């Protein structure tokens, strides 16, 4: 909170209620601590330009190289990714791509 700090147990409940109503949305983010910026965790999303920073505020930890980006986006990431739906509609779209660094040209094109 900006204006006051909760001291007793009831105040912590009030803080939680106020934050639920008036606090920032912090999905997929790590708390930066009081007064610090909230940085997104993991990859960036193309509809939120300006978040191209990693959790420390730099660029060193971004998804790179591109082949890591490709596989993390549809295997490791829970966020709707900019890749084909591997589970339902296009389960075999990377079958010919054993190593993304070498075989990236063999990835199928999938049209929605």
């Amino acid at each position, binding site marked *: 909170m900006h204006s006051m700090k909760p*001291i007793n147990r009831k105040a912590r409940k009030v803080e939680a209620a106020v934050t639920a109503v008036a606090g920032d949305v912090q999905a997929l983010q790590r708390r930066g601590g009081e007064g610090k910026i909230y940085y997104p965790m993991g990859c960036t999303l193309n509809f939120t330009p300006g978040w191209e920073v990693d959790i420390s505020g730099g660029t060193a930890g971004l998804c790179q190289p591109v082949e890591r980006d490709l596989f993390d986006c549809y295997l490791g990431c829970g966020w709707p990714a900019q890749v084909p739906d591997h589970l339902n509609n296009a389960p075999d779209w990377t079958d010919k791509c054993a190593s993304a660094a070498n075989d990236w040209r063999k990835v199928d094109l999938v049209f929605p």
Partner: protein
Amino acid sequence: MSATEVLTPTAQYRLREFHSFGALDARFVYLVPSGAIFALNKIGGDIIDQIGQAGPTSEELVEFLLHRGYQPGEIDAALTELEHSEVIICGDFTPAKPEVPVKRFPLQRIVLNITNQCNLACTYCYEYSPDKISKTEGKPKYMPASIAEASINMLIKESGDRPAIHVTFFGGETLLNFPMLRSSVEYAKRKCSEAGKQVEFSLTTNATLLTEHVVDFLAEHKVGITVSIDGDRQLNDNMRVFSDGRGSYDVILPRIKMLLERHKTNSIGARVTLSSGVHHVRRIYEHLTREVGFAAVGFSPATANPNRLYSIGEVRMGNILDGFEDLAWEYRDWAVAGRHHGFTNVNDTLKELHSGISKAYPCGAGLGLLGVGTAGDINLCHRFVDSDVGQMGHVQKGGVNHQARDQFLNTHHIGARYDCHTCWARPVCAGGCYHEAFVHYGNTSAATLHYCDWIRGWNDLCLRIYGEISLRNPSFLDRFTDN
């Protein structure tokens, strides 16, 4: 939407209900009625001060804060959270009327008045004094086991899903009926074991009848004990006398020391009743802790009509608050050093402040607690047992009279106590003791107005101590979290 977005330029900011207090160089607010305690940051303090002084419109307030050097985003966030926390408001508001809580509150505790007889004749005793309200004529002097057992069965039945219940033995002098007390403890343990519940016991005694045999039984069954004693020989024997006028101190002292020596399984506290001749708080506290050996000492003024000789009166009450304050600061020093201090009045209040209690009723009487007289009559609490007031059934004739209980709870709710509606101490006080109100005003639903200044003074003192402990040794407060 943020606070500043929803406001019209002409709407004025106002402060809502809270009590401000300071500790060291920090500022705190105690919010009413939530009971939340917050430390104010600089912007919070500036906002409250400006609203309190000027009653500004949103435009004026934002301008003031910008002028002070705060950033727009910071101002917006601060105003939004202060408004949602109900510290400030823009425009008019009508305080919500407190709702009466759910009925059929599960019972947690019964107080069994196992005898109405006593071997002492303390001048101020509400069982025997001119302010006596119980009518014991025609009632047995000693509660028979059948009534105690029916009471315990009723408690188990009425306790609903509660995993643990509590039986308190009260009197008269409880140990005058020790054989029945013993059989009741054993009965309650057996019945609670069958019902899958935990049971705890406590009793109040004047200590005159404590023997090693009795103490060993109480220790074995982890019975918590409150000993009534008013200080050293001179002070104690002022009021606590046998019927021939002899003081009780010399009789009880060796017995109390034996009790403290042999009984280690539950708390043993001293309970001091303050009256016109007994108001020396520190002297009493030091005697009972250092010389007698109590780890916990609690004080309470005698309940009395103001015309009684032993009634304390306003001047003496002022002295007592001074004495309490002196001991309370000592408690603070010990808490900062991480040490236990035995002044239970502070401890109990800090515990309530720490949880942020906001009471709908001043105590558990009629809610989670009921009293039972020697004949099995159920009443509001032990102080009203066998009186015409607050009757709520009979343990062998239908059990709790829920209709009478509901009616009592509806008429004694904080929402019905109009005198309390603008008082900042109502989350912890809720109007005061029903018995105190009845003796003073002839009405259980009256607020105990003769104590208002005293209660506000006491709670302000405890808030300042709480605030200071939160700054200097916050881990000390963890002990209030688990219980």
